[in-house]
């Protein structure tokens, strides 16, 4: 097992509300707890006046007294533009979010200091790392970190950056639902279809997973990156604020400290309502008497029902996407603290017609799954394979607009491929590498991912440079394309993340199109390859014709020139069969001529040698 110093890899659930770490030990996966036994580390950072900061429970406690210097829910800011954050969060965050002159990305301002969300997230991760190291008794440098399924490239990259700042190498970014399924798949190698319904503090994800012989495959996902327990808190919070407004003058501003207190109280009420039919609260704003607030479970359920209906709509969409009906679902797994709400359980059960899994603590499932994935990566568990599959083939543009695939669709990451390319024009001093993604034969039907140039090549005849192009997709899904000219040892490279902007449906459409267009694509591709062949034949032949020592007769030269002109005409046309035939015929003919030419050249050389001999 992997519980030894050095190559140990932990699993981290970096949540909107709480974060926690787990590891696979001798007795299976377990949560790494703090000295006081606490497992959940609130994802909150509070900055002190002396320049220091607190993280976790201590920071959360300060959110009441120091709301403007205490940062919570920073996950909502990761990789996001300020505009977007303002639109989504309004003034509910309590701390100041700004953009800078040179970047639209949201940053947090505490006093006169600016922090990126990554930096704040890194402080949370550093605390998680500290807790893990304290629990294990040795250093931890590598981790698997989970993110919501709907995190886009920049959000995933921001998460990786946060880990790096915290002194952790993120070996893999795993989708939370997949980690949850891994956690539940531990005991048996289940076969069938599993739905993971993950309603956390800030995000909702539903995933349809198909499991065969212990192999997990995500068949469909849907969700909303801004739907979770925080929204339910806000529903209660809005009602509390409404009650408060009844007691203070309409123009009075409610102090931020009070707002924070109300936020915490709202969350407390929500928790109580999972156990009881009603809950109440007294709010002391320093008025003559405290303000009483009461809410019943029924009222709460009515308030959150529209959002829960949205989650059910997502479930239906995901099922449709995966091509399964609710009764074909074998297992339903509930993840995230908000699935403790009785109404959530009831609605999910009603929709799928079965009791969902709740055996594991919904707050810990994701971390446990991340630990299992971490264990796989550190070599402790070879039986389990987590599919991180490349959805569309990756390659580069070659002469004539053809698409040369290097990494094919369905390859598991990390994936690597190398191929040799050359030039088609003499004295080319730079080569442009255009990277594409798709299943068609021509790049015009594929998605461009990026481009770069290999410059400063010494001019060489066409076909002579040997350009080694390497594609590497790492475990995090980042594609590195490297081009290296072997003679000059020049190299250049580019890093791209094959866009996650693609939906599963779009991927399927792209593949379907490639099958539908197979006939015309293959024909178009063959035409390009034949044109290239004709071009190369012509270049080679002209080179030979230009050699002064070539003893061709004028008639032969004319014959060849006529053939070349015909090849040229055919190359400009679309008749694949005629061009193929002409290429083959010309190839045979010039082969004979070349043999003759070489023979003549050798003879001439021998004669010259002889004439130089002393007589």
């Amino acid at each position, binding site marked *: 097992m992997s519980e030894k110093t050095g190559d140990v890899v932990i699993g981290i659930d970096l949540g909107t509300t709480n974060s926690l770490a787990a590891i696979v030990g001798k007795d299976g996966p377990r949560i790494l707890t703090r000295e006081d036994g606490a497992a959940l580390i609130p994802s909150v950072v509070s900055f002190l006046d002396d320049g220091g900061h607190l993280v976790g429970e201590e920071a959360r406690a300060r959110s009441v007294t120091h709301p403007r210097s205490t940062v919570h829910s920073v996950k909502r800011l990761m990789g996001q533009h300020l505009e977007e954050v303002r639109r989504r969060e309004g003034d509910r965050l309590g701390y100041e979010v700004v953009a800078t002159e040179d970047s639209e990305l949201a940053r947090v301002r505490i006093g006169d200091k600016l922090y990126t969300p990554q930096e704040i997230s890194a402080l949370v991760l550093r605390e998680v790392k500290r807790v893990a190291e304290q629990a294990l008794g040795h250093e931890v440098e590598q981790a698997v970190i989970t993110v919501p399924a709907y995190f886009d490239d920049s959000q995933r990259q921001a998460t990786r950056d946060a880990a790096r700042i915290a002194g952790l190498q993120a070996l893999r970014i795993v989708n939370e639902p997949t980690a949850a399924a891994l956690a539940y798949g531990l005991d048996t190698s289940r076969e069938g279809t599993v739905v993971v319904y993950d309603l956390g503090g800030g995000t909702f994800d539903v995933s349809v997973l198909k499991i065969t012989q212990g192999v997990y495959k995500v068949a469909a996902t849907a969700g909303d990156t801004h739907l979770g327990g925080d929204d339910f808190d806000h529903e209660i919070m809005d009602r509390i604020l409404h009650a408060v407004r009844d007691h203070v003058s309409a123009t009075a501003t409610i102090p931020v400290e009070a707002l924070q207190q109300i936020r915490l109280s709202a969350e407390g009420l929500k928790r109580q309502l999972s156990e009881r039919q009603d809950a109440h609260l007294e709010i002391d704003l320093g008025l003559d008497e405290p303000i009483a607030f009461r809410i019943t479970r029924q009222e709460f359920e009515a308030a959150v029902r529209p959002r829960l209906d949205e989650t059910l709509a997502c479930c239906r969409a995901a099922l449709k996407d995966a091509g399964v009906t609710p009764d074909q679902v074998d297992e339903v797994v509930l993840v995230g603290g908000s699935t403790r709400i009785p109404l959530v359980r009831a609605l999910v059960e009603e929709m799928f017609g079965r009791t969902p899994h709740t055996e594991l603590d919904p707050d810990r499932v994701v971390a446990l799954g991340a630990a299992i994935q971490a264990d796989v990566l550190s070599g402790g568990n070879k039986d389990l394979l987590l599919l991180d599959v490349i959805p569309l083939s990756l390659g580069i543009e*070659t002469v004539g607009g053809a*698409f040369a695939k290097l990494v*094919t669709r369905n390859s598991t990451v990390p994936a690597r491929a190398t191929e040799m390319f050359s030039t088609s024009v003499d004295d080319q001093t730079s080569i442009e590498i255009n990277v594409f993604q798709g299943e068609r034969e021509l790049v015009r039907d594929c998605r461009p991912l990026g481009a770069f140039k290999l410059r400063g090549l010494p001019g060489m005849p066409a076909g002579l440079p040997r350009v080694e192009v390497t594609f590497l997709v790492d475990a995090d899904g980042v594609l590195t394309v490297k081009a290296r000219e072997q003679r000059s040892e020049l190299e250049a490279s580019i890093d791209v993340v094959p866009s996650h902007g693609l939906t599963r449906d779009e991927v399927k459409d792209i593949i379907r199109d490639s099958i539908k267009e197979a006939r015309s694509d293959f024909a178009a591709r063959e035409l390009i*390859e034949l044109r290239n062949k004709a071009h190369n034949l012509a270049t080679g032949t002209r080179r030979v014709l230009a050699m002064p020592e070539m003893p061709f007769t004028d008639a032969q030269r004319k014959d060849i020139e006529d053939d070349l002109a015909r090849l040229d005409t055919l190359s400009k046309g679309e008749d694949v069969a005629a061009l193929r035939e002409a290429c083959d015929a010309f190839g045979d003919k010039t082969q004979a001529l070349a043999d003759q030419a070489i023979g003549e050249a050798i003879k001439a050389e021998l004669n010259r040698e002889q004439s130089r001999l002393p007589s």
Partner: protein
Amino acid sequence: MTAQDTTEDTLVVTERAAKEFKHIVTQKGLPETTAMRLSVKGGGCSGFEYQIDIEHNEADEFDIESLQHGVRVVIDMKSEFYMAGTTIDFNDSLMERGFTFKNPMASGTCGCGSSFSV
């Protein structure tokens, strides 16, 4: 999802080829269920080249799967369109060792068409 299991007539993997593939799978310590992935790729000296790969993953809805001499053979529908009728054999003579592809419908076959990447 898989598998229209109707490929007996379109693609043939000979017993020798299947045996050699199983040998490679065993040699690499891979599970017995590891599939042979066939595909056709643009490029190469005759315009297209055939490819055999080790497939670690499940076939999907765009694949056609068949069982030939105990080997799971997977091909994507696009390649199948081009490769239909091809016989995949394994040649083990002194002169030549490797997988071969014979397609009676293809205009020209090419010796370099059998790349084996892992």
